[in-house]
């Protein structure tokens, strides 16, 4: 999927363990507007399931998730 909207904010949670990627994301998503995109970078392998679960719980949308080497990238759209 190609996303044309620019990313409003980036959270670099590389090197951080659970629950920091999710907690930092939750703090950052409060600073952007509804419909805005948030990009999260993480190296925690557990973060993939965490982000799926987290978006299900919160209602924010997981637009894209990918992995490049050992870096996971999640693109989220604020509800």
């Amino acid at each position, binding site marked *: 999927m190609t996303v044309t909207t620019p990313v409003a904010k980036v959270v670099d949670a590389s090197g951080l*363990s659970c*629950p920091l990627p999710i*907690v930092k994301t939750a703090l950052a998503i409060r600073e952007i507007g509804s419909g805005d995109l948030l990009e999260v970078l993480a190296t925690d392998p557990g973060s993939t399931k965490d982000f799926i679960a987290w978006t299900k719980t919160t209602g924010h949308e997981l637009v894209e*998730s990918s992995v490049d080497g050992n870096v996971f990238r999640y693109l989220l759209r604020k509800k």
Partner: protein
Amino acid sequence: MTATLTRPILPTALVEGLDDPITDGAVKTKELVIVAESGDLERTWATTILASTAAAGEMKVSIFFTFWGLFALVRPEVRVTGTNWMQKMLAVMNRPGIDHAKLSKLNFAGMGPWMMKKLAKQYGVAKPGELLEMAQALGVRLIPCQMSMDMMGITADQLIDGVEPAVGAAAALELMTNADASLFI
């Protein structure tokens, strides 16, 4: 720069086991109450990890700090709490403040917690104090137990900012019975 191939993750394969009835976008706010009774480092860690994660998941979270758990709410610069010698001795033997929590096992006069914190740093794990701050920023309610404050001689001005007024067991039980999940840690 080397071109690296970006491998997409297929959500369908990973969603397995995470299915729940919430699919229509109508998300009900869930409530979690943690009774933080222990002042041990590992338990304080569990409390702050769960509280911050739950709050990140937009759950309504309250932590009721009682007995040894209450020391986690004491400001870091407060060395001794209490007014009589017994209360003071308690604080001297068990230094208040979340950063001074000891391990229940393998404490080795502080070597254990020192090693745990070193490992935590190495693996990018936040310390309980940092998690508590983030939890507060995410709206977690920190509620001290009045009886524990009285018995240990801890005053409201010795507690960190943002702590709610102290309550009793009945108020704590009301929170617990209305919550979706309650934990005693």
